[in-house]
């Protein structure tokens, strides 16, 4: 999962995700407004949310997992949600879970423009469901968020390293090309 360069995850991002899980809508909105005002954008929050879902999914589906496990989980989730599940696209939830477990074959479904709007809703719902299923209290969620933040920061470093390697490779390529013309 790529991370935007310069993305920082702060305590206010963690507090906002905590409020999303345990707080009221008003409490979450208050935290989110603070993030928008103080942290100049919601990139850190979105990244933490995405990595929290990824961490929770990998905890839930230990290897070796199968597509059948994912189908069953999503069906059970939709059954539990009853009428609230009507607006959810089961294939999008399945694709998100599979992608977070390392199946890149579903990337197209997740990047399709018509699914972008629903993706945050699906991420949020999945996180709430996984936290409830794992019976995590605030301490448990804090541990999950710390683990997710560490993963995101590690990924950001790898992405920067990769970008630098690409840049260096392009420079070598460019200097090689100029030599060949000299």
């Amino acid at each position, binding site marked *: 999962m790529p991370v935007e360069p310069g993305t920082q995850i702060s305590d206010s991002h963690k507090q906002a995700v905590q409020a999303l899980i345990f707080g009221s809508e008003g409490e979450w909105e208050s935290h989110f407004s603070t993030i928008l005002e103080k942290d100049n954008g919601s990139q850190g929050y979105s990244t933490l949310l995405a990595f929290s879902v990824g961490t929770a999914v990998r905890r839930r589906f230990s290897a070796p997992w199968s*597509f*059948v496990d994912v*189908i*069953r989980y*999503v*069906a*059970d989730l*939709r*059954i539990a949600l*009853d009428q609230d599940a009507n607006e959810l*696209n*089961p*294939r999008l939830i399945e694709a998100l879970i599979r992608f977070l477990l390392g199946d890149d074959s579903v990337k197209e479904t997740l990047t399709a423009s018509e699914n972008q709007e629903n993706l945050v809703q699906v991420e949020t719902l999945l996180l709430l469901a996984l936290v409830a299923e794992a019976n995590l209290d605030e301490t448990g969620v804090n541990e999950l968020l710390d683990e997710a933040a560490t993963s995101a920061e590690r990924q950001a470093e790898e992405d920067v390293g990769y970008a630098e390697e690409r840049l260096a490779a392009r420079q070598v390529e460019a200097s090689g090309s100029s030599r060949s013309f000299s």
Partner: protein
Amino acid sequence: MGVTDKQVAALTAQLAGRGDEHKRLFAELDAEEVGFEYSALVGAAVALAVDRRFVENGEIADRKAVIDFVAELRSRTLKAAEALDPTVAEQLILQNLGKGDISTLDNKTVFGAQIIVLAGLIADEQFSEAELTSFMATVRGVAETWVSNAS
């Protein structure tokens, strides 16, 4: 023209798992009869199979039972898991139970889902050859009525 013996034989072969026979008979149908009489036959078979599975003593199963069946059906093979959109399959079944809506779906999508759902329902019935023949006779009767009403 009503439903023909060949159309019934083509669908019966498919539901009995005789793939080669189904392919041969289906290839002999022209596009017009596939789009009309054969589609009516498949639709009637789905309606009756759904009824057998999801209606018991006049009581219609709830949406949970439908989600559960579709998930179980998709879990049988990777091909079914990829090919069958759960939302489409669920709406198809619910529509046959008087609860769903497939009006926004195109014919090709519905037909594809009908075949997979029907195959799953019939496999679960574990019909003998005689029971399948009897089921198909009832299906044919329903399809004949639909076709004559639509003509």
